[in-house]
């Protein structure tokens, strides 16, 4: 018995459709690769401080965030992690969230990285991070009173 035309055509159509699918573009393959912008952002977000004790550095981070009006939501000493948020007063519907990590980097140094989001969108303006580190420096090295 001869195969019906439908049965013959179906695998051909599938083969043709497969041939039409384009190869992954360069953009797709680079989805998880670090971009130049990401590297720049990381450098804005990170700074090394001459502090030997991680707990002391974390207390400095917490104090700086509190001075800036942030609410400390979570703090984990063993992971060196602080999460905080504040409202963009007087508009209480806009919220800024910050996650700060504190990691030892060599003898007597701590690498502090801050990631800020504003209404769930990442903050990429270097000025924002400069302002944060200026307050942190004050909190870590200048008398806290």
């Amino acid at each position: 018995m001869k195969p019906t035309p439908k049965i013959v055509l179906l695998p051909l159509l599938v083969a043709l459709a497969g041939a039409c699918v384009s190869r992954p573009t360069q953009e797709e393959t680079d989805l998880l690769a670090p971009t130049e912008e990401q590297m720049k952002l990381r450098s804005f977000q990170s700074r090394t401080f001459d502090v030997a004790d991680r707990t002391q550095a974390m207390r400095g981070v917490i104090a700086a965030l509190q001075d800036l009006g942030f609410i400390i939501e979570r703090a984990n000493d063993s992971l060196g992690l602080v999460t905080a948020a504040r409202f963009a007063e007087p508009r209480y519907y806009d919220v800024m969230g910050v996650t700060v990590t504190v990691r030892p980097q060599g003898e007597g140094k701590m690498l502090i990285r801050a990631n800020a989001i504003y209404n769930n969108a990442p903050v990429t303006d270097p000025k924002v991070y400069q302002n944060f580190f200026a307050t942190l420096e004050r909190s870590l090295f200048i008398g806290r009173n």
Partner: protein
Amino acid sequence: MRTTTPRSEELLRVGAALLACAVVACVAPTKPEELLQLHPESGAHKAMQTRHFETRDDVELLSASAAVLQDLGFQVVESERPLGFLRAAKERSAREYGQEITRVFVALLSVAASALGGGNSVVIMPVDVHQQIHASLVASPIDEAGDRFEVRVLFYRLVWKSDGQSGNEYVEPGEQRMEMIRDAGIYQTFFARLSKAVFLEAHKI
């Protein structure tokens, strides 16, 4: 001297609340870079939220802080002993007479206006119904010897609104907003209780 009756006082309060809503709606958004900058009022807020205690026992200070928060009806939801951190929350009703009166007043006004215009739409303003009050507390040493500790506490609240009606459109319940609590009396009460609990005098900064 002019005096105001409770009724006129209530009306004034309602008018002020409406005016405040209109002003807030027009306020320009704060830029993100301004949110990570110290402001002139930062020092005053810190002074209100902070007290110093002459003690070496940070564990006792933190544990007494948790006990005071419990006495005030809070549940501790987060704690990190090495950093002297506590976060606590409590749930309460957020209903206020002022808002309820405004709601009725606006509804009546909308019915009257719509009757004059030949329509039958009504405006029912959503009001605050429920709130969650949070406390975020940090106890940290303020000298290298660890003889003095500072306790800084921050109170804020999340408020949920009821449902409402705007013309033919139904406003779903559950809209949420957040507010910092900046009533000095609340902070004074907290520190007075903490001072009693640790048998130490709380020093203002």
